[in-house]
């Protein structure tokens, strides 16, 4: 155990986390250079493109230190978005230390601080690393000063490196060995291991990522997952070195995997404790939370006959994404689809993108919604996340919506802008505190519905990227809820209905009508687009009929060409949905979902 180090790398986006990981992997030569590709831990295209990590990855790096001893350095890569903050916290809980990576030209950024606080919360030992020192614009002294003043860390411990050209990588490895504490724990005690991620392998079932805190686990053990008391016979344990390397056992302090014929990832819950059936630990690890979706949206295939493919794709995606929940749904306008629950809007976008990209589906998503609690006049409570199921307002007593406690960390000069952003979103500023002379944390209570859309983007924009945001669900509070319907030529398009606060209704309806007007092509007749609450019309747009197209000649040589033209147009129409007699392109549905600007 003395020769194990478990650590994460935490950094602001684009400060070089993936490149540093790559260099550490290369330096320990567990992978041949010819097999190497950049950002090796970000295996999904989406991760590489967006520069974010979605799935945790972990890798065990054998490293012979300058003192001549062999160490096993477990790098646990963490997701980088507020939607996945719980997974991040579990990954950090598996570590004793963290490398805090700072770009030498950009210095300390909002996310650097947010990440640092998270690491400190988990009592991690922090090694500051100043990266990109090869850049002409690098200002190491400035960054050192910030490390001291803004982060309160000892700047003399900071390591200079350039992950790009490999400078300083040796020092980083030595620091991991010398500055991070080895894991503690009794390998003779009853097994206590933390599940911090899992993924599905079509041959082996769920691969469970664990950090062993106490005791020992090996093939043949019968284990229990504490949260649901499910029992599994362990077939194999091992460590990750890009590929899985089986080991006879994992003991306290180790990071690795177990395989136990687990068919679905949903049994394997992030944050859960694994122990032995015959010799259980007395107290499970703290901090377990059942992950619940907070954002809901329905997904429909553009071509109705793609429904079976969508069903298969979701099933496959779900194997690797325990937080994705879905059930069948249907819409008059869009046919069959699925109602899905997500951890947040980014999670939704990722699922959508993966379905479209990896399964080649074109999709229509309905407006994301939170889960409302509707108390009927007869006293019964109905939980509603789907506008289609909204009851007759005549029978509704009160409605409640989820609130969050939002923590925003920002340079104080953006305080005013953040204040107005949050107030505009029906937020209440409950607290604020200064971390340093010009950096502060602001606390707001905001309805969740107000942040799922574009809050994060807006915050980034009003703070020029310096504001960071984290939240937790707190409670349900009474709200004045209305259902806004969109009518196209008098026909209600159920897929475009939204549940919103009454003060938001007109604005949302107007926005939807405007977007639809822009996206629906002119057709043979006038198209009226209306936003309505019940029978009351609150916004309206009209699309005038299309241009005249008097047709001249068509003889033998024109027929194939003309037909091909019609066929070409029809291909575009495959991405259209008929609502009544109006053809609505997929882009129109998507545009309504997009935020303003």
């Amino acid at each position, binding site marked *: 155990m003395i020769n194990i180090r478990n650590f994460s790398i935490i950094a602001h986006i684009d400060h070089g986390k993936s490149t540093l990981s790559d260099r550490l992997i290369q330096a320990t030569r567990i992978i041949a250079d010819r097999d190497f590709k950049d950002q090796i831990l970000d295996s999904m295209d989406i991760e590489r493109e967006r520069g974010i990590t979605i799935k945790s990855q972990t890798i065990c790096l054998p490293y012979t230190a300058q003192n001549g001893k062999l160490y096993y350095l477990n790098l646990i890569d963490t997701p980088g978005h507020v939607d996945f903050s719980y997974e991040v916290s579990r990954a950090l809980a598996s570590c004793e230390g963290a490398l805090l990576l700072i770009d030498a030209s950009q210095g300390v950024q909002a996310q650097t601080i947010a990440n640092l606080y998270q690491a400190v919360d988990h009592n991690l030992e922090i090694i500051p690393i100043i990266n990109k020192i090869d850049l002409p614009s690098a200002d190491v002294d400035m960054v050192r000063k910030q490390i001291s003043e803004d982060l309160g860390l000892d700047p003399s411990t900071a390591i200079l490196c350039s992950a790009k050209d490999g400078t300083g990588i040796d020092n980083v490895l030595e620091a991991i060995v010398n500055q991070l504490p080895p894991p503690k724990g009794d390998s003779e005690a009853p097994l206590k291991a933390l599940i911090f991620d899992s993924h599905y392998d079509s041959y082996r079932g769920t691969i469970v990522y664990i950090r062993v805190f106490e005791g020992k686990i090996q093939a043949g053990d019968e284990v229990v997952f504490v949260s649901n008391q499910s029992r599994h016979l362990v077939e194999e344990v091992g460590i990750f070195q890009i590929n899985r390397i089986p080991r006879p056992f994992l003991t306290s302090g180790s990071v690795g995997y177990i395989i136990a014929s687990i068919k679905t990832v949903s049994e394997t819950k992030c944050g859960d404790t694994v122990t032995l059936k015959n010799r259980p630990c007395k107290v499970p690890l703290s901090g377990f939370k059942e992950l619940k979706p907070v954002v809901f949206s329905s997904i429909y295939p553009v071509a109705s006959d793609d429904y079976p493919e969508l069903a298969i794709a979701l099933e496959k995606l779900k194997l690797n994404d325990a937080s994705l929940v879905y059930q069948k749904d249907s819409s008059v306008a869009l046919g069959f689809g699925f109602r899905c629950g997500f951890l947040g809007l980014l999670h939704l976008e990722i699922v959508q993108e993966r379905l479209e990209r990896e399964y080649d589906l074109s999709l229509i998503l309905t407006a994301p919604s939170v889960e409302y609690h509707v108390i009927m006049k007869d006293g019964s409570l109905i939980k509603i996340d789907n506008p289609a199921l909204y009851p007759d307002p005549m029978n509704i007593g009160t409605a409640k919506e989820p609130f969050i406690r939002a923590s925003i960390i920002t340079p104080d000069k953006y305080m005013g802008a953040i204040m107005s952003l949050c107030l505009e979103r029906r937020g209440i500023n409950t607290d604020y505190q200064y971390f340093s002379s010009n950096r502060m944390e602001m606390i707001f209570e905001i309805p969740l519905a107000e942040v799922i859309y574009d809050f994060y983007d807006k915050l980034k924009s009003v703070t020029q990227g310096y504001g960071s945001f984290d939240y937790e669900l707190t409670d349900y509070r009474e709200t004045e809820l209305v259902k806004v319907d969109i009518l196209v030529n008098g026909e209600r398009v159920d897929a475009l209905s939204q549940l919103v606060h009454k003060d938001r209704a007109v604005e949302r309806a107007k926005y939807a009508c405007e977007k639809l007007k822009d996206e629906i092509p002119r057709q043979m*007749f006038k198209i009226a687009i209306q936003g309505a609450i019940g029978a009351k019309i609150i916004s309206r747009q009209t699309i005038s009929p299309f241009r005249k197209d008097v047709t001249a000649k068509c003889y*033998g040589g024109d*027929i194939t060409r003309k*037909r091909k033209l*019609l066929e070409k*147009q029809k291909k575009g129409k495959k991405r259209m949905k008929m609502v009544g*007699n109006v053809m609505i392109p997929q882009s129109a549905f998507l545009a309504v979902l997009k935020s303003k600007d």
Partner: protein
Amino acid sequence: MCSLQTADAGIYIHIPFCKRKCLYCDFYSVTDLDKRFSFVRSAQTEINMIDFPMPTVDTIYLGGGTPSLLAPEDVSALLDSVRRKFSVSNDPEITIEVNPGTVNLDKLKGCRTAGVNRVNIGIQSFQDPYLKLLGRIHDAREAIACFDLAREAGFENIGIDLIYGIPGQTVRMWKADLKTAIMLSPEHISGYLLTYEAGVPLSLALEKGNIIALSEKKTVGFFEMIRRVLTDAGYIQYEISNYAKSLPSRSRHNLKYWTFAPYIGIGPSAHSFINNCRFWNVRSVDDYMTLIESGKPPRAGSERPDFRQQATEAVFLSLRCAQGICINDFEKRFSVKFQQLFGRTIALFEAEGYMIQTDGFCRLTCKGMRYLDSIADRLVYDIYKENQVDSAAASNPT
């Protein structure tokens, strides 16, 4: 018989020569007239090369280009080749396209002797400035003279082509053209909206801003005017751009294009359709002659439209015709219920006054004809939408 469909075949011979290219024309032609003689021999060879069984031929059409640039002996030679190769009916319609400025009485008489019984004159306009703008080689006086010559040569079936929507054209001028046309009393009048085909000089002039296209409102007005004026004068609109003095004077040959009758195209760029196969020849006259010389068919491409493609063609071609889609024929041919497939869409078009359904036909109204492309487009969506038209169930269209 419900439809206009006939099993008799048409022969189209493309004569790819012009004295000068008109500025709006995208038909294939060359101005090197010396090649005419060797071309005629190639075309004869192509006729003789046809190696598939052919139904009776009841129409022959010499189009172009400018077929009237051929000597009557050449016309005679081509028609003889057709007669020798195929079984030609007793009363074939044999048309030659004639451009004013390329014929005299002798030539017209010679054509008539060769067997041509219908001429179609490319008059286009009776206004000299517009003729000049279009790049025609003739003026209005020559146009009328040409018509008179054709009558004098004994032709009793004469069609004339007019173009409207020319930059600068006014309602009054268009009306005057139509009056002049009616006064000449041809058996057939085609009125084509000027279209700006990609790459032709007129389109380039439009792009450069040297000419300004007429507004849609105006061209629609012109379209409605030709329909009204010619109908008032007793002409029957039997296709979007075509009017006949009486049912027998409809262009029997052109009707084949819209009714899935078989036709064989001879000459460069000519298209053929037979046994549900469409094929077409190379565009260049030189390539055409080289291929023929080496004993190869001058084919540039071919296709066999699948069931949905056939249904698409059936929709946009039938709707061009005044009688519209024969619902019974359509249902039989594509094994679908017409109402089930299009009912909802057509009901909407009916409500808007674009379409009517009577006596088993579904046709465009005058208002609807203005929107043919868009209406066809919408119906094609229905064809593809629910997989109701099954590609596997294809049957022989003839």
